[in-house]
């Protein structure tokens, strides 16, 4: 059984939504294909048997369309309710942050601006890194996502997080990491010839490790 790591508070809800869509659509897909091929077999050409002309108005024929149509619409209601709930919880909510970071995409690297020991952005002790994002587990982060040049998309697969970065805009989002580890960050929007190698890493650390990293990185140069 394939297991995908989930490392944010909302990763499971997004996975469950995708599973719900896959199951409902999948059931109907296989059912429809089964009926389709059964009908092809049942009404195949036979010697001496004349082809029937159907107007499409016969009730006993129409029910093969109307009944599944109604049932599919019922399934759609479940999908819409699930999708709206996830959208509301992930995109319409902005929980109080423990910290705020700035993420800047450019062809073809990610620059991360971390608040230093004062936990305030745009102060002298900010820590700038390229392609390495450091966060603390179980802390809620707001991120300000920006682009210096073209469209990019900040994607952290283990968070099930993907957000476009648009030049001229600062887009706010959030995440709360749930387990320590080191994972991939990628660009999910084709952004030029180096798009495929625009990769970074996110380091999710416990409180002590993160504090030690802040101390050691505070001496880093700022741009």
């Amino acid at each position, binding site marked *: 059984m394939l297991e995908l790591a989930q490392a944010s508070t909302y990763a499971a809800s997004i996975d469950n939504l995708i599973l719900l869509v896959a199951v409902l659509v999948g059931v109907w897909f296989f059912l429809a294909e089964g009926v389709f091929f059964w009908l092809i077999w049942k009404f195949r050409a036979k010697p001496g048997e004349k082809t029937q002309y159907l107007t499409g108005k016969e009730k006993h024929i129409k029910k093969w369309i109307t009944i599944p149509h109604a049932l599919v619409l019922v399934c759609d209601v479940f999908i819409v309710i699930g999708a709206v709930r996830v959208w509301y919880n992930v995109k319409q909510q902005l929980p109080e942050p423990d910290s705020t970071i700035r993420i800047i995409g*450019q*062809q*073809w*690297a990610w620059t991360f601006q971390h608040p230093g020991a004062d936990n305030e952005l745009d102060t002298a002790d900010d820590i700038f890194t*390229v392609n390495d994002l450091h966060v603390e587990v179980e802390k809620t982060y707001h991120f300000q996502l920006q682009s210096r040049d073209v469209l990019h998309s900040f994607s952290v697969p283990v968070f099930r997080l993907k957000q476009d970065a648009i030049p001229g805009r600062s887009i706010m989002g959030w995440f709360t990491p749930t387990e320590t580890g080191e994972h991939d960050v990628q660009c999910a929007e084709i952004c030029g010839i180096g798009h495929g*190698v625009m990769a970074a890493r996110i380091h999710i650390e416990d409180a002590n490790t993160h504090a030690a990293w802040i101390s050691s990185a505070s001496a880093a*140069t700022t*741009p």
Partner: protein
Amino acid sequence: MMVRLPNAGKALLPLLIMGVAACDATPPPVGMVRGAELFETCAPCHGDAGVGNPDIAAPAIAGLPQWYVEEQLRGFQNEYRGDHAGDLPGLRMRPMAVSLTRDGDVESVSQYVASLDAAYPASTLHGNAGAGAASYVVCVACHGEDGLGNPDLHAPPIVQLDDWYLLNQLRNFKSGARGARPDDTWGQTMRVNSLALTDEAMQDVIAYVQTLR
């Protein structure tokens, strides 16, 4: 036991063989042909003739010595170039260098770049060459009186580089965006020499370098 292929299988067999041949993992030969092939990745920014594009801060690289291009590509690969948040063009170049993963690729593309005719881009800055001549005394030891560089000291020929590129690099050295990593021995040497230069002095010395052509 013989396995009989159905007719369709027989028809597909040549395609299968061609597919396997296409997946041949033998690395391509090192040299100009491979270099020209790899340079197609560089051309969108540096131009087909390697003359650069100031609008996107891509310098003229045509005709630079092979050893220097190789060294810079390895610098990008080893993260002592293009790994600083303030070095935006460097950040763009680094993944391009990292994508040269096959043995011999760095040598091949460097050989190709070296084979192109040097561009000697026109001046864009307005420094005082007379004042810059005095500052250049410090540079002579490595880059030479003629600015043609010295491979033994890992000093490139600076006379054929864009003046705006030289200014950016001097600023990078001074700010620590370049030459601050302990494993970048030659970059550290250059950084020390850049620290005393003001922005005006940088433009002056670059103006003097342009007169050496």
